[in-house]
């Protein structure tokens, strides 16, 4: 059972972490919050946005503020799984040759999988075990990844040529999907100022430790959610299925598959983390509303008609939110 002190400590630590990241990243509050939520929920985040919006900088700033090991993997079509997870190599020691495992870039606390949709599905799937199980298996050996562990993957939504859409199984393993929007005028001016004057952008110093993150995870899991709200989340998730009685007309028309049970789990966990970051001790309906679209957007698969008509999943989920009452 957590104590009030644990809650206060965790809250203060993550508040410092957020402030540190925001000293580097201009705007993108929701993206930063999504990354923190993923960190608190032992999840991963899929960042979607055009190049040059600061996705990589965000991940590096987060790793730097936490004082954790950071690695970046640039996904390309010729990238192989061994390039990610590592491989056994022959080493010679004391006159004896033997195989030794050489760790790949996946062995870090904060992993940036840049343009993940440029690699082949085989390589993409090499991240599956690491993302879900926090382990890596090479040959007969399974290696545990250090906690906290978080994968932040980016993908370019515009440039589709030479890309490989992420398999549904892998997409489902991302806790949240955050869209990195283009900065506003004021934000853009601020970015220009920060990067062109003085010594440029400097990554933040560590303001929280891995231990703080793990304790905060425990606190988040203790935050209560009312039974009525759990039912509400379940109804929302069911409403994304075209065959559900709760589904609105657009979902019936344009959706092929709705969100999986992981979607409900992600929504509830993310709502808890959101409430924690807001300084609350219980999940509120507004917490669910904030995480509803990020937690489910990447889990909805449109049908052919939806794809052909360019239906946006976010709009469909907004329709679901409006058509499913909390009471």
């Amino acid at each position, binding site marked *: 059972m957590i104590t009030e002190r644990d809650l206060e400590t965790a809250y203060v630590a993550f508040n410092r972490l957020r402030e540190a990241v925001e000293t580097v990243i201009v705007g993108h509050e929701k993206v930063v919050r999504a990354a923190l939520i993923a960190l608190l929920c032992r999840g991963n985040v899929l960042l979607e946005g055009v190049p040059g919006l600061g996705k990589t900088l965000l991940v590096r700033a987060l790793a730097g503020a936490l004082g954790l090991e950071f690695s970046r993997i640039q996904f390309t079509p010729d990238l192989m799984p061994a390039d990610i997870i590592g491989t056994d190599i022959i080493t010679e020691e004391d006159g004896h040759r033997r195989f030794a495992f050489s760790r790949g870039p996946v062995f870090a606390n904060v992993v940036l999988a840049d343009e993940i949709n440029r690699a082949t599905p085989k390589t993409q799937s090499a991240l599956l075990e690491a993302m879900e199980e926090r382990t890596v298996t090479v040959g007969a050996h399974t290696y545990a990844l250090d906690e906290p562990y978080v994968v932040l993957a980016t993908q370019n939504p515009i440039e589709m040529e030479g890309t490989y859409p992420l398999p549904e199984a892998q997409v489902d393993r991302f806790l949240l999907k955050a869209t990195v929007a283009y900065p506003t005028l004021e934000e853009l001016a601020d970015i220009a100022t920060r990067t062109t004057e003085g010594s440029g952008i400097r990554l933040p110093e560590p303001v929280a430790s891995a231990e703080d993150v793990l304790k905060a995870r425990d606190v988040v899991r203790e935050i209560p959610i*009312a*039974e009525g709200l759990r039912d509400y989340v379940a109804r929302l998730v069911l409403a994304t299925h075209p065959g559900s009685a709760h589904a609105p007309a657009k979902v019936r028309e344009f959706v092929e598959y709705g969100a999986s049970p992981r979607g409900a789990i992600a929504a509830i966990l993310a709502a808890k983390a959101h409430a924690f970051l807001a300084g609350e*001790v*219980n999940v*509120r309906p507004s917490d669910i509303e904030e995480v509803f679209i990020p937690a489910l957007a990447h889990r909805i698969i449109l049908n052919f008609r939806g794809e052909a008509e360019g239906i946006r999943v976010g709009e469909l989920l907004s329709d679901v939110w409006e058509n499913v009452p909390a009471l």
Partner: protein
Amino acid sequence: MTYRETVAAIERRVRRLSAAATAGVALLIPAAAAAVAAVAVALFTVSSTARLSVALAALGIPSVAAVLGFAFRMRRPSRLAQALLRVDVSLGLDARLSSLHEVAKTAPDSFIFRRLEADVSLRLDQWRKALPVSARTVATYATGATCVVLAVVLSTLLQPPHTTADPTDRESIAGEVRGADGHDEPTNPSVDGAIGDAPTTTGADDAADEAERRIDDVLADLGLEGAPADGGGDPGAVELGARDDAATFDALIASLHERLGASGAKLTIDEQNALREAATDAPAPVRQAIEDVLSASSDAERREALETLVASVETPRDASQDEPVASSRVSTEQEPDDEAATIAGDQLLAGLEEESAGGIPPALEGDAAEDATREARTPGSEDAEAGDEGPPVPAEEDSGERAPGSYVLERTPTAIGDDGEVKSYLTTGVPLEFAEEGTATSARVSYEQIESIVAMRELSPEAALIVRTYFEAITEGGS
């Protein structure tokens, strides 16, 4: 009020509200069914017992169902989580009360519980406004209660339509009957009250009295007990009542003639009253003759006046041979669509008159006084009876003569409107069965025999029913 007390109160209220909603539905369904049953009873059932049963059922069954529904739902688990969330939303508690309830189940000693309890305690007093009685429940109860009231009112107060027929029709028929018999006697007050007044009474007391009045009572007043209920307002039944009055008057005259002529006695008080009453509606010659009888000072003068009265009675009687057709004409005017049925009824009525004149009065059988009167005023009756022994006589020459081969060629001594004589509507030579000598009954004709004639006319079912009712009325039971 602490959190636990509040949650307990909320749970009780939720349980009661859901039980009340269930009870409302349980009330509404049988109440609606009772209302439908009451409408059916009001339309088709005369029996007051059946009506009372439906009224009691309409009151009892929905009430019992509501109580059972309430008890059943009270024992079911309540949806407390939804209710708590509703209170949260209503009071703007950001799901704190619901979360508090959740923490109370898992970690009641945690600091989260204490913090949430402190947050919600200030606003918990207003929780009742978040759980009002729903409009749907109120509407359900209102509808159910309306159905119950409707069922009770319909089953107890409303009478079947056929007991409240148009009074003007009955009155006109009765008036025609009185005119047909040459008497203007007042009809039986109870009959008038039952037939003529019931539908026009609007006062609450009168309406209640009329509602209690059953068609059987009306039939009893008409002297037609055992007749079908539909015949309660049948013109034939009224005709028979008027005929009874005429026969009574004839019997009175005959009795006076016999008693005063033989003994020379004086009129009794009752006889004087009866004569005065008869004089009020009698034609002028008859009235004058009655007054002469009443004012006669000597026996000889009284006998002479009595002879005059007898003679004056015979004159309008002969002139009124056509009157039954007049009553039938009324029926024709009332129901032009059923003209064929009316014609068939006229034939039967004419047949009745013929039998009355020819010594075969099934409806008045056994009335010795009338027989005596008929013999006194119908000189041709002997000829008709004598004709039984002779050869068949053509109908055009001698109506009502009976053929030795036990059939008669009927000639109806009347006409229907502008259509000519009724005989044109009769099938001449139809054999009739006569009772053997010594039996009490006269000719018996079953309705099945008549039915073939009705079928030939291609009458509508309603018209055929009128014919049958009339037939059963004049034959006192069907043959």
